[in-house]
């Protein structure tokens, strides 16, 4: 009898845990999709707003790197540098940004890696981005790793790591906004 009750309560707790995990998975996926959508819609200010005040966007030149701090980086940007990039891209004389260009992101393979009791989440995912520049179509792909914190406004990014597979070869392109 006691054993049965105990089993029941464990089951219930497990169910709650699974439901909680499902809820987190769903919320995190929605967050990633929205972030990609902001990029593709060129809503730079809203995109920067997804980072915490000390948040960092980082793209290492190769996967073996373990920190952005003090290492060569394709991107290693805090909010201030993000604002420089935004200001530049919006300037009418950013020559490389004058020609027509647009992107289309698909984010998938979302793996919830870790969730701490205070709601901090580590989530890994894969992306595929098609870019049109002038008459050229290019493809970029790789892995995202988001360290998210829960705030009253929803999730915010403490660290976004982007391991772009293309970065292993010579750069036959420039990346003028975040990937």
């Amino acid at each position, binding site marked *: 009898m006691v054993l049965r009750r105990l089993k029941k309560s464990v089951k219930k707790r497990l169910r709650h845990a699974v439901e909680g995990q499902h809820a987190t998975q769903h919320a995190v996926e929605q967050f990633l999709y929205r972030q990609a959508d902001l990029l593709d819609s060129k809503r730079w200010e809203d995109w920067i707003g997804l980072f915490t005040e000390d948040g960092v966007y980082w793209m290492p030149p190769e996967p073996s790197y373990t920190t952005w701090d003090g290492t060569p980086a394709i991107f290693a940007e805090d909010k201030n540098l993000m604002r420089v990039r935004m200001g530049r891209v919006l300037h009418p004389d*950013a*020559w490389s940004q004058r020609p027509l260009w647009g992107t289309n992101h698909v984010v998938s393979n979302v793996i919830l890696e870790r969730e701490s009791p205070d709601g901090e989440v580590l989530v890994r995912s894969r992306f595929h981005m098609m870019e049109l520049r002038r008459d050229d179509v290019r493809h970029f792909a790789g892995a995202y790793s988001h360290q998210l914190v829960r705030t009253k406004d929803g999730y915010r990014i403490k660290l976004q790591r982007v391991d772009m597979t293309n970065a292993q070869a010579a750069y036959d392109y420039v990346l003028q906004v975040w990937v």
Partner: protein
Amino acid sequence: MLRERIADIGKFVEPDRVRREVYTDPQIFELEMQRIHETVWIYCGHESQVPKAGDYYTVQIGRQPMLMVRGADGKVNVLYNRCPHRGNMMVGDRHGNTGEFFRCSYHAWTFHHDGRLKNIPMLESGYAGTRYGRDNPDCSMKKAARVESYRGFVFASLAADGPTLLEFLGESKVAFDDMCDRAPGGEVEVVPNCFRVIQHSNWKIFLENQLDALHPSVTHQSTGRAAHEVEKQIAKKAKKGEAPLSYHMLSAFATVTIDKWDAFQTLNYPHGHCILTGYMGLRPQDPDTLAYDKIMIKAYGQRRFEEIVGVNIHHVLIYPGLSVQSPLQQLRAVRPLGVDRTLTEIWHFRLKGAPEAIYRRSLAYYNLVNSPATLVNADDLENFWKCHQGLASEGGDWVTFGRHHGRDLVKGNVVETAPNCGTSEAPMRNQMKAWAEYMRGA
């Protein structure tokens, strides 16, 4: 037909202008690879890229795939990346360690680090009575005709004859002195990452841009203004605080207005080498710099220290393949891939014995200016591409280099720009003069 045209190279290059085919003609490209890149001293890499025996790095010299390898004797060799047996490329990776010897992946011929044949499977039974074997130099990997290094920077020449490396570098060797002297230990070591950026334009267009003092405030104004805005916001927020120096480097594109660039000077030397003086002003009085100064004074003494940090260089161009920013410890090596495709390899160096903060300062510049997400070079690359496209058209025959032409001061074999003529196109004229000499076979 090309031979006829090239026989009179004078038709292509005049003192203040150059025919557009010099940039766009594939046959001229082939000839310049042969007469320039596969003849003169070309930068291969830094010795610290290959610290251990067997470490190698591949490098393109002109059209030749080469590799730089450290031998067991400590010597750095430069070899053709080719097996003498059937021509197989010896290494397929861009860099790595080959172990105690090279071993061809096709038929297992093995070679010492200096390229000498070590062994062939069943050498005796297979080759007895033939002309092949250890005594035949054609059975060894071919070496670059000449290899020399200066302060750890390794160069190779594929021509047996010609000036020595130091004769070739002349005054431009200051690029390496200035970089290394700024280290308390007098040496630099490579930061193990290389940004490799492909430009869709002729290699000369890139080199001509490097000392072009008129372009920064036009090409890079968007970044300059954006950085200046954020720099002001940071300073305001921090009350009397200041934004990191990297913001200042970027905002200079907006704050140093176009008319101010004439205050700088270029010095133009034989072989097409040129120096752009001034501009960076990397002697701020922040705590990081002061701590560095202290270490430097301890290492060199006050007088020598003043000499070292007083060297006033922004950029040194070592024609035809290297652009060095010595005060920021970075260099860009130019590898032409085709008449309209150019690879730049961009390296950053650490000053041995200098504080971490000094490394980080130049690292910020390396990332911001030279990464493929660059806030700066993106607009250069756009211009280079547009330049090449325009030159392919029949809308005109010439590229002109007339700015301040005739006002340069000739002092022996050095051409200096006159006072307040810093935006002179003297460096381009100097490069094309060297180009014409090389192409004539002079």
